[in-house]
């Protein structure tokens, strides 16, 4: 299964081949001022010629000076939305005369997804959620039913301003975990994709598309795309020994400092591709004849998340921010054997007040003492003073 090269037309045929095999193709699309995943009809739905500019608490779309289809980093939400949906019916129960309650459903069949444009950090995140949802003694049936998605990865050429996968060793080049992996090469009149094959079903699909074998210069060009991306990461984080180093600073005064800026809004956890928390609630229909148990995304930033009888264990925002950061970077390792962070940068970009996990870790781990660099209250806030915000009217 050697690498091959396809052109733009070949890529269109590849998407059509997925559709003809009854896959629901989900890919990046431009909507509401961002590049978000959505079901596509064809290649013309991709955000050709667009790129993103990401900073702490800020995301903007710009035009590129080429027609690249994948010239941007990851958007507002991850593939988690498709594999671990925001709201899931766990089961329904019906009251039956003289019998009692009988379980009924859910009966919905899982969609047959093909994900196109999956980045290396996201493949790593899916691998982490595999451990969470499938790794223990009870595999999650909902996740498992969706997990068989066909994965067309795209190797990153334009890291975002908040990306730090190189620090977390999760990117920008995906080595496994895909059916096919594309590196987009755009130079002058050339617009091609070097395609690596990661599975036999990927190989089979590629057989339906005209291609030529990749030569060493194609492979070199593909490698250069991700090598250059590695050099241009917007953020970095010294990940060595983080679990232990963070476990040693649980009482650091900097937690209070972050808590003074943190809104406890849950955005960082819900956009994170690895966060897996949910709450479970029961509702009934009008006549009390049917009960529904629903699982909904939750976050350690809500009071309900740590509610035991009589109150919430993590009552302050300090407690909740600390839970979040230390779970991601420290206790996750003991729990699942990997870090809970893949360095996708979403929590930084989509935090309404621009709190930056990489900056906070640095402040927490800076040597104590008079010479310790302090972080000003505004740190981590968006650098752009921006035009006056539009006030809702």
């Amino acid at each position, binding site marked *: 299964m050697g690498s091959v090269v396809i052109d733009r037309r070949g890529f269109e045929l590849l998407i059509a081949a997925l559709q003809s095999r009854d896959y629901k193709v989900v890919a990046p699309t431009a*909507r*509401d*001022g*961002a590049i*978000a995943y959505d079901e596509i009809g064809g290649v013309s739905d991709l955000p050709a010629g667009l790129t993103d500019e990401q900073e702490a*608490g*800020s*995301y903007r779309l710009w035009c590129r000076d080429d027609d690249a289809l994948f010239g941007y980093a990851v958007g*507002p*939400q991850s593939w988690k*939305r498709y594999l671990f949906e*925001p*709201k899931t019916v766990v089961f329904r129960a019906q009251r039956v*005369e*003289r*019998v*009692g*309650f*009988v*379980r009924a459903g859910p009966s919905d069949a899982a969609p047959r997804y093909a994900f196109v444009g999956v980045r290396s950090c996201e493949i790593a995140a899916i691998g982490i959620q595999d451990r969470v949802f499938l790794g223990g003694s009870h595999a999650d049936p909902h996740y498992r039913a969706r997990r068989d998605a066909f994965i067309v990865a795209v190797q990153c050429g334009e890291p975002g301003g908040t990306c730090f996968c190189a620090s977390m060793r999760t990117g920008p080049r995906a080595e496994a975990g895909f059916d096919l992996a594309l590196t987009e090469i755009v130079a002058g009149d050339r617009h091609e994709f070097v395609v690596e094959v990661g599975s036999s079903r990927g190989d089979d699909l590629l057989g339906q598309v005209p291609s030529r074998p990749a030569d060493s210069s194609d492979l070199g060009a593909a490698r250069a795309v991700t090598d250059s991306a590695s050099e241009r990461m917007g953020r970095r984080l010294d990940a060595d020994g983080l679990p232990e180093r963070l476990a040693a600073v649980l009482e650091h005064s900097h937690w209070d400092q972050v808590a*003074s800026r*943190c*809104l*406890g*809004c*849950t*955005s960082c956890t*819900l956009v994170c591709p690895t966060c897996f928390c949910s*709450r479970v*609630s*029961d*509702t*009934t*229909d*009008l*006549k*009390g004849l049917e009960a529904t148990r*629903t699982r909904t*995304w939750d*976050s350690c*930033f*809500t*009071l*309900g998340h740590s509610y035991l009888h009589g109150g919430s264990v993590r009552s302050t925002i300090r407690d909740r921010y600390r839970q979040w950061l230390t779970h991601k970077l420290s206790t996750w390792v003991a729990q699942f054997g990997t870090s809970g962070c893949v360095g996708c940068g979403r929590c930084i970009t*989509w*935090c*309404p*007040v621009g709190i930056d996990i990489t900056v906070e870790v640095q402040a927490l781990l800076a040597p104590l003492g008079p010479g310790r660099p302090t972080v000003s*209250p*505004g740190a981590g*806030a*968006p650098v752009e*003073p*921006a*035009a*006056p*915000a*539009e*006030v*809702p009217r």
Partner: protein
Amino acid sequence: MTREAVVTPPVREVPVPRLPERQRAPRKPSVAVWKFSSCDGCQLTLLDCEDELLAVAGAVELSYFLEAGFSSDGPYDLSLVEGSVTNEADRRRIERVRAVSKHLVTIGACATAGGIQALRNFGDVEEFLSIVYASPRLVEALGESTPISAHVPVDYELRGCPITRAQLLEVVLAFLHGRRADVVASSVCSECKLTGNVCVTVADGMACLGPVTHAGCGALCPSYKRGCYGCFGPMESPNLPAMIGGLNRRGLDDGSVVRLLRSFNAAAPQFQAATQALIEMGECPT
């Protein structure tokens, strides 16, 4: 022990001894709806649910007390109270309502926080009266608009200006079936994420009160590319200083922040404390 003896019955069918429907529900729960100072928007939400409520083959006995009228027929199993307390008669009436209600649920921003009319709390009512009304003597009004909970114990508060239909139905159903209502108090941001909205603060630089505002609307305004106006009031643990800092950094001055926070939930304790602090700092006009 024989082999058969260890065979367990299928777990999915739990036999529950049941009586015929008619004997099981001898009396319909009585639900009363009371109006205090308000615009009727929340009651309209209730009217909007009536099909469902009545479809339960008369599951509830519904009584409306739209204006100041009071019937001593009671007691009521559930009282839904709309509106705030703004005059002396209201103040007395809410005590009588409480006395005849087993459960009292307040609905909407007026009943839970004083509503838009609580803007008077920050001004001089005598002055308003003399400017606005031809015969100020005929107007009987207290100096402040206050939530129902300032006067009597409240069993449950449902937020919103107006409340949402789905949440109202959920609370009534939960009451009817004796279970916990599926209503959460986290931020509107959490609803944006569930819905899949692109954040208007991050992507468009708009002012949005979602991070400090109670969920329940399904992130309605951000879904239409508008910042949240805070009409569900403060969420469970709002960090107003951080919110104001964020709005300031995006170019909103303190005066605009005060105007943004002083609307339907102006007198909600956390919002009121935040705007008062800004005004006391003297950097913005009231």
